[in-house]
């Protein structure tokens, strides 16, 4: 249990410090695998078929399928590095340590008396949520945003485990399914972004704003006509 929590914390720090998107995908995959194991390790009661099925689904979805999918996205977009994040990697890691302290403080503040899982799991979970959000805020590439979302979602799931809560089997599966479908759609949008705009920098997504004026609109129209034309041909 403690080892798993430490792996989760390390993975969060690694995500903050790595510029290679390929590595980041692997780290998130490891998080998924570890999360899948958690319910089995944690189980205070007998392992039902439902728990096994859920664990296997989590491992398959978060540890294998989604990483493979994101990897194909990565390859087809041909971008391998996060260049010039808003906050540099060194500072990110320091921020990560601050977030870790914050997560520990939150766990202490919650003052749990009945929980069956060690508090470090909850600290790790809060840290994952915070670091996932931090990644989404400070990085530019769409793929990193997806990874940040996954890390955060993993964290939220781990919060549930840290508080030793269980939802009914069907609901747990529903939550997992939502995440998987969500990431699949995000990956799909990412591909379109790469194809239509020739970049996946989310900070350059600035076409839509309240100040948009004539000039902006016209420029957009001309650059879009081509894309729509080609898109339609593909569809036919």
């Amino acid at each position, binding site marked *: 249990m403690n080892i798993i929590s430490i792996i989760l914390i390390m993975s969060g720090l690694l995500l903050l410090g790595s510029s290679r998107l390929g590595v980041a995908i692997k780290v998130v995959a490891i998080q998924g695998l570890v999360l899948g194991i958690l319910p089995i390790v944690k189980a205070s009661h007998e392992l039902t078929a439902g728990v096994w099925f859920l664990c296997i689904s989590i491992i398959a979805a978060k540890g294998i399928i989604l990483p493979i999918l994101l990897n194909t996205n990565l390859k087809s977009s041909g971008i391998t590095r996060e260049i010039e994040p808003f906050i540099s990697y060194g500072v990110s890691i320091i921020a990560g340590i601050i977030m870790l302290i914050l997560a520990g403080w939150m766990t202490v503040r919650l003052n749990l008396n*009945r929980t069956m899982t060690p508090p470090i799991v909850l600290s790790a979970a809060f840290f994952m*949520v915070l670091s996932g*959000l931090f990644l*989404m805020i400070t990085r530019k590439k*769409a793929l990193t*945003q997806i990874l940040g*979302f996954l890390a*955060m*979602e993993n964290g*939220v799931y781990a*919060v*549930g485990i840290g*508080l030793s*809560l269980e*939802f*009914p089997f069907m*609901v747990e599966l*529903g*939550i997992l*399914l*939502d995440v998987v*479908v*969500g990431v699949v*759609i*995000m990956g799909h*949008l990412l591909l*379109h*972004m790469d194809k*239509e*705009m020739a970049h996946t920098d*989310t900070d350059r*997504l600035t*076409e*839509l704003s*309240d100040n*948009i*004026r*004539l000039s902006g*609109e016209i420029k*957009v*129209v001309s*650059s*879009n*006509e081509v*894309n*729509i034309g080609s*898109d*339609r041909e593909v*569809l036919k």
Partner: protein
Amino acid sequence: MIRILFPTVIAAMAGIIAFFIRSNTWRRALLVTTASVHLVFSFYLGAIKPIKAGWIGTDSLSVIFLVTVSLMFFAAAVYSIFYLTADRHHEPENASRYLSSTPESIYTGCMLLLLSTMTLAVTARHFALQWVSIEATTLASAPLIYFHRSSRSLEAAWKYLIICSVGIAIALMGLFFLRMTSPKVSEFTVDAFVAAGSSLDKKWLSAAFIIILVGYGTKMGLAPLHTWLPDAHSEAPAPVSALLSGALLNCAFLGIMRVHQVANAGGIGVMASELLVMFGIFSIGLATVFILRQPDFKRLLAYSSVENMGIIALGVGVGGGAVFGGLFHAVNHSLVKVALFLAAGNILARYGTRESSKVRGLASIMPTTAFIWTMGLIAITGTPPFGTFMSKFTILKTMTAKGMWSLTAFFMAFLVIIFAAMSYIVLKMVFTPPPPEMPEKPERTLSWIMPVILLVTALAAGIYMPEIVRNHLEQASALFGGGLK
């Protein structure tokens, strides 16, 4: 149980089938048929006694939202027929950018799946099940926003998906906290938790309410969490914008209301109400700023949605008779806003621009749409005798009765500014000489029939409220200790 699941299941099945139907005619028929069956069934569920079957069920609150969702979907479905055929024929040349699109099967399929997930979201009584369905609505609607494949709609869909997914993931954490308030209660349902009442742990409950309010509030479009909303609403095709605004935002609000119910029962109702009031008035104020001099008429409607969500939150937060007003306003807002968004779709298809400064002479070029547009304006700004006036008035009356003078003053001021700003923009679009090069073209019945019906309903709601509607609104308000009686 089966009766409540029926509308969800039938919409989901129709949605899946729609992906595989080749013929456009059959697919469109399926869309409208499912919408009608759903509508009839929702009215039936509204007429019979509430059914509670564990994880799902109906009460007055869910019935109000269910019927609203169903009616809005029906309107959007009928309008979609017009929209999709207009899409085929590429009406005016300069509109081609807005009327080129993804395959229709994906559109119809996602629409129906959206209906199914929204239905589940309003009928769910298990908190986590509700969460699953609210998140699923995001997933079903994201491809719809990206219907017109352009870099703009792509940006909108991306922001929508990312921001709402993060918000809803945060709400899940809030649900874990909510579960912690009472580990002994076996079922994680509204009924069980409300029944547990004062035995709930207040610390956990306060934390849970705040986190869930922020999480679902993102999806509901409460300022300052609304940033995705104007983009998504302005880029989505008209029927989808209408549904997002008229049905989807309500579903997210229902998520908040359910937790509010528990908060009331658990003894932190005052704090919860204050938070709702704060978010509410802030949303109204922020929307006012952006509505002033808004150049894009679809964004104008989107910010008006932020405003109205604020009004609804404010109403429920103020409590007492205002809860009745707030819930009634949710229904009225849906009726009017859907009509307005559909009319906006007509204007966009005809003029090929979303800049209101380029839309001139609406009254002579598209008389029916101009009528809807003007009437919609009058309704949305809360002018009598529309239902929106009644609901806003009820909220204001309760606020003054409770002596919230400064809040009332701000609220009134915002409403007046919004009224002036929107009238200026809308009337300038309608009553000006038309551009000379616009050719004559008749409006198709399908393009205006549903908005007119919705507006007439909104008008009727302001004049006469049937007993059954009043009962449902009263009972729903009573869940929050409110109501007119």
